[in-house]
């Protein structure tokens, strides 16, 4: 009896927490279909806000910026991070601990400090803020995450296979492409997907390094919310939620297959 009461309570408690996690998001989605612009009274179903979204040039521009930055960041950070993870795994050298610290520090220091420090650098170098500075910043905060993910995958990798390939005459680059990369591919893809979502969702760092002509979607939402609440923001948020969700489910599928 006691156990079953405990179980019931467990289910009840867990449901409450899930409700807490999902209720706000569900209501946000629901109200993106509400006709009323002014308040929370439900006045009828409409998809007008979505239509308006696609006629709003500044939002489309921000979406374009976000996607461009996310795609290039994903390619850049995945390449740098994967190579680095392989290098760290393969070699022992002086200063390895220092390099490790340098690479993993960005994960733990406050984002706002990273944001302002890059702003300080760009302003000292007289680099004007825009897509390039966004890219530089996004790749910087993504590389450590790619390294962590790829590294986890490398942990189970048998070094002897690489050595066997090279003993048989394969060049290091060929060994990497034909032996190492296929083994760590799921880690690389997971790292790339993680980078894409980190980049497309970043608020704090982008806030400091984006220029007036390079507003990303989250920054656009930020300025829209500051002006006031409109169902258009709900519609935009819903689409972004959907996009993130699809990527995550895709990544999850990929990992399930691996198992």
């Amino acid at each position: 009896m006691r156990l079953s009461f405990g179980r019931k309570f467990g289910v009840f408690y867990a449901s409450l927490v899930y409700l807490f996690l999902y209720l706000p998001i569900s209501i946000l989605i629901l109200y993106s279909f509400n006709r009323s612009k002014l308040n929370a009274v439900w006045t009828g179903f409409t998809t007008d806000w979505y239509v308006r979204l696609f006629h709003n040039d500044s939002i489309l521009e921000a979406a374009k910026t976000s996607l461009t930055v996310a795609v290039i960041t994903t390619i850049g950070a995945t390449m740098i991070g994967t190579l680095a993870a392989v290098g760290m795994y393969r070699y022992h050298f002086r200063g390895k601990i220092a390099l490790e610290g340098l690479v993993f520090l960005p994960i733990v220091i406050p984002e706002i400090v990273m944001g302002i420090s890059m702003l300080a650098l760009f302003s000292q170098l007289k680099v004007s803020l825009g897509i390039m500075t966004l890219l530089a910043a996004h790749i910087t905060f993504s590389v450590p995450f790619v390294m962590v993910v790829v590294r986890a995958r490398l942990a189970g990798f048998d070094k002897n296979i690489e050595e066997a390939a090279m003993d048989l005459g394969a060049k290091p680059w060929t060994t990497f492409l034909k032996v190492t990369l296929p083994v760590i591919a799921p880690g690389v893809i997971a790292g790339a997907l993680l980078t894409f979502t980190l980049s497309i969702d970043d608020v704090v760092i982008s806030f400091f390094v984006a220029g007036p002509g390079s507003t990303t979607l989250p920054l656009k939402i930020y300025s829209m919310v500051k002006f006031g609440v409109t169902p258009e923001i709900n519609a935009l948020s819903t689409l972004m939620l959907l996009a993130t969700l699809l990527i995550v489910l895709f990544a999850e599928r990929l990992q399930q297959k691996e198992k």
Partner: protein
Amino acid sequence: MRRPPDFARWWTLSPVTVWMIVLFLLPLILVLAVSFMSRNIFGGIEYTFSLDNYIRYFDPLYLKILWVSCQLAFLTTVFCLLIGYPFAYIIARSPAKYRNVLLLFVIVPFWTNSLIRTYAWIILLRTEGVINTILLHIGIIDKPLTMLYNDTAVLIGLVYTMLPFMILPLYASIEKLDKALLEAASDLGARPRQTFWKVTLPLTAPGIMAGTLLVFIPALGLFFIPDLMGGSKAILIGNLIKNQFLTARDWPFGSAISIILMALTLLFIAVYVKISKDKAGKDLM
């Protein structure tokens, strides 16, 4: 065993080294340097060495901001822990076939933009918001409640945003917990409550510490939640840094506050590493 030629080492590790030195280390050194300079009348930087910015920080006004920020980050951590621990425990003890799905449903909101999650609460809490509309409609209240633009709203926003960061490490440590130890404790006559305090809690302490770290540090820097949900006086250390850089244009002072925030963060991490090392040492004995 044949060693791969050196150039392979060069092309795997030099991109990351160069990139992180130029775009991570150099900017941090720059901020450190600027924090010892002063602001000139045009809002630029005067290149003279002084400790003024750090001395200025010890003004009660700024110390209070630091204190309030730490308090709020601490409360956020405590609420995340109180909500998250039983929840992580329940998931970790649920039938194995459901566990991954249950966990995935915790991670999904964590993958969504934190700004959007903040906005979702604004829709709920504002004067013309969903909660007020429903309560007015049912007739429980006759004029809207003010739930937004105060410290409680900021706390709700922070807890909501940070909760998954607490649940995940807690889950990891509770799931690893050996059930046999709990049974042994109860076989030896420990009551459930005793078992919890003497066995479960100490063994899951690493998860609690990791979660605390993951929640506390970002909670100090998330300037947009106080910005959007807090009242006009809700200035936290993240907002202070942001304002020094973008509004007041006092970069040296803003840099000094950033260095203080970073020092504080590294201090927390050092304490965390020390505690977990001591614990690992004890476990070996």
